[in-house]
């Protein structure tokens, strides 16, 4: 994401944002913490496992959660986000979540896709990549989707309809087949009149 070349550059304020950083490794948590305080965040909440993160979620209304995918204990980062989306603790169940991940095991790719995070950021983390992603998630206005096997931000980024070879499950999904015309076709004059507006003379 680049800033406009002319005019005042947009400013982003993380001073009052309530941010929770979840990372099991001490050095990893320190890296995250330094990046966000460098962005201007004041004393982000820190947790090293899902249980501690849950405690923060229950006590504080959060604006952003950044969570490592691999956590120690019964819950990994994907399980934690899945818990968050279903916990009914408003507004935190709708809070923006960025998962950060080094290498993702093949067996966990589907879990990552379905956990309900807004964004997955690959390590190594760099300040430029992180600020771009933070601004991106701050600008997005995706609805949440709730269905039997998913609760989280709409994963359809573009209006391209339902996945290929499916009917679509949403009430606003249009059928793939285009129906028969119910009125006569427009004449060429009608089309020209629409596409070539004429100057009005008085």
């Amino acid at each position, binding site marked *: 994401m680049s800033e406009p070349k002319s005019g005042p550059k947009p400013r982003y304020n993380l001073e009052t944002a309530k941010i929770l950083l979840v990372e099991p490794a001490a*050095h990893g948590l320190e890296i995250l913490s330094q990046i966000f305080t460098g962005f201007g965040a004041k004393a982000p909440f820190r947790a090293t496992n899902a249980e501690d993160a849950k405690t923060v979620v229950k006590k504080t209304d959060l604006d952003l959660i950044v969570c490592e995918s691999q956590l120690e204990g019964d819950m990994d980062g994907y399980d934690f986000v899945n818990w968050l989306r279903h916990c009914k603790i408003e507004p935190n169940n709708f809070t923006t979540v960025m998962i950060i991940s080094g290498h993702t095991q093949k067996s966990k790719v589907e879990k990552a896709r379905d956990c309900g995070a807004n964004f997955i950021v690959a390590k190594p983390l760099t300040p430029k990549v992180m600020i771009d992603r933070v601004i991106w998630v701050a600008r997005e*206005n995706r609805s949440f989707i*709730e269905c039997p096997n998913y609760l989280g931000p709409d994963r359809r980024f573009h209006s391209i309809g339902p996945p290929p070879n499916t009917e679509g499950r949403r009430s606003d999904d249009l059928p793939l087949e285009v129906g028969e015309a119910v009125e006569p076709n427009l004449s060429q004059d009608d089309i020209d009149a629409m596409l070539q507006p004429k100057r009005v003379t008085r």
Partner: protein
Amino acid sequence: MSAVKKIRVKNRLAAAVRAPGGKTIAEAVAGAEAKLEDIRGDCLASLDQILASMAELIENPDQAPREEVAAGLYELSNDVVGIAGVAGLGDMGKAAFSFCDLLDAFIEQGSWNAAAVEVHMNGLKLLRSMSDKIGEAGRAQILEGLFAVVRRIKAGAAPPSA
């Protein structure tokens, strides 16, 4: 057909970042880079500790079942992926990512290849201790060698000897 419900939600982060004041992207990046520079030395020390732990796991393979060794190495190598870039050793991070790829394949296949593991450990040590001396071309050569090993393992072939 299952029911799908759309819920409009307020983006709380958007409201927070729009508050007066704040930083431009360039200022935010510079601020974070300065903060990371403060912990660069700690990151290098952490990398050395992790490498020592990895070597210990490999050198004492009888202490734990092979699957546990693979899982332990995977976790440690993934830590290297997260730290190396901050410590200014981006190529070491790539080598660690390749090692994770290899170990994930072992975990998936229930297999093990000591030569492939040794090649990766040697690569990581070299990229940590002699990164500047071997130069960009040397680092690229090491990485290409590691990637080739992983490709061969995934294809079911034996890697070249370590």
